[in-house]
C-alpha cells in the first residue's frame, strides 16, 4: 500500500510542480514526476497481483466532509496496471512532444490532474471516492479537450463530450445510490457481500450503471462523443482517453454490475451482450472506412471495447447458467484484452501524433511512404497493428484467443439460452476480428508503406528521443505479454475470481504455457517462438541455396511506366469493397458529378467521385433529438421576454406554490 500512496503523493507533487515551476523546465519536470508516479502505482498493482493480498487505506484530511477510501484488490490492480502503463508512456511522450499551448501551466496541471484521477478510479474503495475520482477524470479531460479551443471542431467535440460524460456520470451516480439504498453499504466490498436483491431497484441500478459505464466505453448508441473527442484531444491525452479511460468504463461494469448486482436477471445481460456485439461491429466497420488516422483509431477503440463488453456480458449470462468456469475465462479474456488494447492503442495514438507533427496531416488519403521518413515509428506501429489484428505472439492475440475459447466453451453443455448467447458472442468476435485486420492493414499499408501521396518535408523531426522511448516501451509490453502470457493470465485469473466468485475451471498459466480447462486446450507461446526461430533459420538456408543477386528496378505494374503516386490505392479505395458489402449498415453517401465540355455533351471534362460515410446512428438518433431540443429551447423563450416584472412575478408565484404544497 505504501507504494500506491507514494505514487499518488508523487502525482500530487507533479501537479504542484506544474503550478510552481518556470516554463523552461515545466514539461520535463512534470512529465518525469508523472511517469514516476504512474510507475510506482503500477508497481503497487503488480505487488498486489503477485502477493494475493488486498490492501486498504483511508485518507481523511484531503477532502472536506468526506474521507477517501482506497482499496487495491486483484481486479482493481489488473485495471490499474493498464492505466499505469498508458500513463507512463503518455507522460514520457509528452516530454518530447509538447509544444505551444500544451506547454502552458494550465495544460500541464490539467494533464497531471487527469492522470491522477485515472489512477485513483480503480483503487477507489467506496462510492464517494469513486464518484469523486470519476468526476475529476471527466472534468480534467474535458478541459484538456479545450486546450486547442480555437479550432471549431475541438469546441464541437467538447460540447458533445461534456453532455455525454455528464449524463453518464449522473446515471452512474443514481445507479450507485440505488445500490447503496438496497445494500445499506457504501464500500464496494460490503456491497458485494450484501448481494442486493432482484427487485425493481436492482434492475434500475443495473440499467443506470451499465448505461453510464458503457457510454464511457463507447458502446453504441452512446458512442457519439468518442470519435469526436479522442481525435480532437492533444495526442498524449488521446492516448490516455483511449487506452486508459475507456478501460475504466469496462472496469465499472465488472466491478459494479458483474461484481455487486449478482442477482440481476439473465435477460438484462443478454441485452448488454447484444449492445456489445453491435458496438464491436459498428466500430470495426467505421474503422475500416475512416480516412482520418485518429478517427480510425477512435472507432477501433469502440470495436475493442464492444468486444470487452460482450465478454463481460457473456460472463454474466453464463454465470447465471451455472458455468462459473466459463464466466471466469471470459473475464480473464476481457482483462487481457484491456491490457493489450491499452498498450497498442496508446502506441498507435502516440504514433499518429508523430505523423501529424511530421507531415501536418492526419488524412490517410494524403499520407504514404512514411517508412523511410519515420523508421522507428513505423516499426512500432507495425508491432501495434499486428497485435490489434491478433497476430500470434502479440498481446492482442492472447485476449482474443481467451475470449473466443470462452464463447466456444459456452456453446457446449449449456442450456439453449446459453448456446445462443455464446453463438452471438462468437460470431461477433469472429467478424470483428476480420474487419479489424482490414483496418490495421489499411493503417499500416496505406499510411506508412507505399509511396508518399503528397508533398512533405525531407526529415522526420517529429521522431524525438522521448517520443521513441514511449513508443518502444509500449511495443515491448505488447510483444512481452504476447510471448509470456502465462504469468499474466495466472494473476488475471485471480482478479476474475474476485468478480465471479470461486471457480474450478478458470484459466491457468505458467511461464511456458497457458491452459484453458473449459475447452481442454493450451497455448505454448515460448515453444511457438522457438519453432519460429528454427523455421527462419531453415528458410534462410533455403534462400542462401539460391541466387543472392538483387536488382533494384522500377515497379512492373503490368507494364505501366508512368506510374504516379496518385495511382496507388488510397485509404478510401482500399475500404471501398467493405463499404459496398456493408452498404446497408454504413449507408454511405456517394455522388458522382460529371461536367461536360462546352462544345459537346458527349465529352466529359471532369468526373468527380465523392463518397462519405457518416455515423448512421448519429444521423438517425441524435440529429432529431438535438433538433427537438432546439425547438423546445426556442419555444421556452416566450417565458423570458425581457420584462423585469414578469421575472419578479415568477418568483412570487413560485413562493406561493411552495407555500401551498408545504401547507
Amino acid at each position: 500500500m505504501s507504494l500506491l500512496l507514494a505514487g499518488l503523493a508523487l502525482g500530487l507533487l507533479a501537479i504542484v510542480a506544474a503550478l510552481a515551476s518556470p516554463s523552461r523546465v515545466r514539461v520535463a519536470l512534470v512529465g518525469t514526476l508523472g511517469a514516476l508516479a504512474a510507475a510506482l502505482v503500477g508497481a503497487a498493482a503488480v505487488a498486489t497481483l503477485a502477493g494475493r493480498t488486498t490492501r486498504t487505506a483511508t485518507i481523511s484530511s484531503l477532502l472536506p466532509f468526506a474521507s477517501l477510501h482506497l482499496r487495491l484488490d486483484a481486479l482493481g490492480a489488473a485495471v490499474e496496471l493498464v492505466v499505469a502503463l498508458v500513463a507512463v508512456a503518455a507522460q514520457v511522450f509528452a516530454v518530447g512532444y509538447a509544444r505551444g499551448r500544451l506547454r502552458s501551466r494550465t495544460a500541464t496541471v490539467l494533464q497531471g490532474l487527469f492522470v491522477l484521477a485515472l489512477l485513483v478510479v480503480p483503487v477507489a474503495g467506496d462510492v464517494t471516492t469513486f464518484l469523486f475520482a470519476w468526476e475529476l477524470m471527466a472534468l480534467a479531460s474535458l478541459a484538456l479537450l479545450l486546450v486547442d479551443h480555437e479550432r471549431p471542431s475541438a469546441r464541437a467535440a467538447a460540447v458533445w463530450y461534456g453532455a455525454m460524460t455528464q449524463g453518464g456520470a449522473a446515471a452512474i451516480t443514481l445507479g450507485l445510490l440505488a445500490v447503496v439504498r438496497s445494500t445499506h453499504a457504501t464500500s464496494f466490498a460490503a456491497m458485494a457481500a450484501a448481494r442486493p436483491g432482484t427487485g425493481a431497484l436492482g434492475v434500475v441500478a443495473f440499467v443506470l450503471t451499465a448505461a453510464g459505464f458503457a457510454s464511457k466505453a463507447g458502446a453504441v448508441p452512446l458512442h457519439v462523443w468518442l470519435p469526436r473527442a479522442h481525435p480532437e484531444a492533444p495526442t498524449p491525452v488521446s492516448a490516455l482517453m483511449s487506452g486508459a479511460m475507456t478501460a475504466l468504463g469496462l472496469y465499472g461494469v465488472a466491478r459494479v454490475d458483474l461484481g455487486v448486482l449478482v442477482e440481476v436477471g439473465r435477460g438484462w445481460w443478454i441485452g448488454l451482450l447484444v449492445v456489445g456485439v453491435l458496438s464491436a461491429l459498428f466500430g470495426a466497420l467505421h474503422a475500416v472506412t475512416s480516412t482520418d488516422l485518429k478517427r480510425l483509431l477512435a472507432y477501433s477503440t469502440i470495436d475493442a471495447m464492444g468486444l470487452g463488453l460482450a465478454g463481460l456480458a457473456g460472463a454474466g449470462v453464463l454465470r447465471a447458467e451455472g458455468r462459473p468456469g466459463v464466466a471466469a475465462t471470459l473475464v480473464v479474456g476481457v482483462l487481457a484484452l484491456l491490457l493489450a488494447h491499452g498498450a497498442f492503442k496508446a502506441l498507435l495514438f502516440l504514433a499518429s501524433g508523430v505523423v501529424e507533427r511530421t507531415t501536418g496531416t492526419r488524412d490517410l488519403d494524403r499520407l504514404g511512404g512514411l517508412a523511410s521518413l519515420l523508421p522507428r515509428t513505423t516499426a512500432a506501429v507495425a508491432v501495434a497493428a499486428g497485435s490489434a489484428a491478433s497476430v500470434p505472439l502479440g498481446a492482442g492475440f492472447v485476449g482474443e484467443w481467451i475470449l473466443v475459447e470462452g464463447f466456444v466453451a459456452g456453446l457446449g453443455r449449456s442450456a439453449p439460452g446459453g448456446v445462443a448467447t455464446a453463438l452471438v458472442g462468437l460470431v461477433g468476435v469472429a467478424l470483428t476480428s476480420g474487419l479489424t485486420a482490414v483496418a490495421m492493414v489499411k493503417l499500416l499499408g496505406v499510411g506508412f508503406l507505399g509511396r508518399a501521396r503528397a508533398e512533405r518535408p525531407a526529415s522526420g523531426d517529429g521522431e524525438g528521443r522521448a517520443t521513441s522511448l514511449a513508443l518502444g516501451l509500449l511495443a515491448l509490453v505488447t510483444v512481452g505479454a504476447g510471448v509470456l502470457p502465462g504469468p499474466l493470465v495466472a494473476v488475471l485469473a485471480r482478479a476474475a475470481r474476485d468478480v465471479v466468485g470461486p471457480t474450478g475451471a478458470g484459466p491457468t498459466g505458467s511461464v511456458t504455457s497457458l491452459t484453458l480447462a473449459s475447452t481442454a486446450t493450451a497455448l505454448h507461446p515460448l515453444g511457438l517462438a522457438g519453432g519460429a526461430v528454427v523455421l527462419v533459420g531453415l528458410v534462410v538456408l533455403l534462400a542462401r541455396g539460391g541466387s543472392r543477386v538483387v536488382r533494384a528496378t522500377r515497379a512492373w505494374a503490368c507494364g505501366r511506366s508512368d506510374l504516379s503516386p496518385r495511382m496507388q490505392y488510397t485509404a478510401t479505395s482500399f475500404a471501398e469493397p467493405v463499404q459496398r458489402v456493408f452498404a446497408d449498415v454504413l449507408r454511405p453517401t456517394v455522388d458522382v458529378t460529371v461536367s461536360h465540355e462546352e462544345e459537346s455533351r458527349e465529352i466529359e471534362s471532369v468526373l468527380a467521385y465523392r463518397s462519405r460515410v457518416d455515423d448512421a446512428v448519429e444521423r438517425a438518433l441524435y440529429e432529431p433529438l438535438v433538433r427537438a431540443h432546439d425547438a423546445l429551447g426556442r419555444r421556452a423563450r416566450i417565458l423570458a421576454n425581457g420584462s423585469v416584472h414578469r421575472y419578479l412575478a415568477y418568483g412570487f408565484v413560485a413562493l406561493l406554490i411552495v407555500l401551498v404544497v408545504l401547507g
Partner: protein
Amino acid sequence: MSGSLLSAVQVLLVAVGGLLLTGVMAKVRARAEGRVGAPVTQPLREVAKWLTRESPRAGGASVLAAVPYVLLVTTGLAAAVVPLAGVVTAGSSGADVLIAVFLLLTGSLALALGGLATGTAFGGMGASRAMTLSALTEPALLVGLAALAVPQRSMDLATILRRAVAHPAGMASPSHVLAIASLLVVVIAETGRLPVDNPSTHLELTMIHEAMVLEYGGRDWALLSLGQAMRLGLLFSLLATLAVPWGVATSGAALPVLAGVVLLGAKSVVLATGVALIEVRSAKLRLFRVPELLAAAFVLAILAVVVGVVAR
C-alpha cells in the same frame, strides 16, 4: 517417433505435398478439359528454377523481401503445430484450432502489406479485395471449426482428432457434414480457387490474389510460391483430416505414422481432385457475389453448431 520429429516431417510433407497438390490440380483440370497438361512435378521444378534467378525489387524493397519469409515461417509453424499425420503427444499439445487460424491469417496480412508496399495500383487493388474476402471468411471459419470442436469438448486439434477416431460414427452426423461443407467453401476462398478467385488469370478486373504478388520475381518469387503452395497443402490436408480422421496415427511407432502419412496423402489428393473438378465446372463469381457464397458458408456453419446442440 517423438512429437518434434513428427512436426519436422509434417512441415516437409506440407511443403513438398503442397507443390505436388498444385500440380495435381492443374493436371486434373487439364485432363478434364481434354488437354494433356504439365507433369504433376512441374511446380516443384519451377520453384527450383526460380530459386536460382536474381530478384528484381522495386519500391518497398525491404517489405517485399520480408513477405516471403513471414509467409513461409507462419505457414510452416502452423504445419508443425497442427496434427495431420498423427497425434503422438499425450495430453494437450498446444495444437489449438485458433493458433492455426491466426498463423494463416498472419500470412494473409503479410501478403496484403506486400501488395500495398509496391506503391502500384494493382498491388493495392489485390490487397483491398483479398482483405475484404478474408474478413468475410473468418466468421464461417471460426464457427465451422467451433462446430467440429463442440461435440469433442475441446479446441485442441489433437484431442479433437483423438476423440473423433475413437468414435467414428460422429462423422456421419449432420452437424459434421454441414461443418465440413462450410469449411470446404472457406478453404476454396482462402486458397483463391474458382469460383472465388481464378489462380491463372491476369485480367485486372478479376484478379484478387495475383494482383498482390505481381511485383515479385526470381528468388523472392520462388520463396513466395513455395509459401503459397504450403498454405494450400496445409489447408487441404487439414480439411481432409478433419473430414475423415481415419488413419491418423495415435501412437508414435513408425508403422502407424507411415500409414498416417500415406493415408494423409491419399485423402488430400482426393480432396484436391474434387476441388479441381469443381473448378472445371464453375465460372468465376463476380467479386460482389462472393459475399453471398461466404454468407451461405456462414449459415451452414451456424446450422452445424445448432444441429450439433439440438441432436446431441
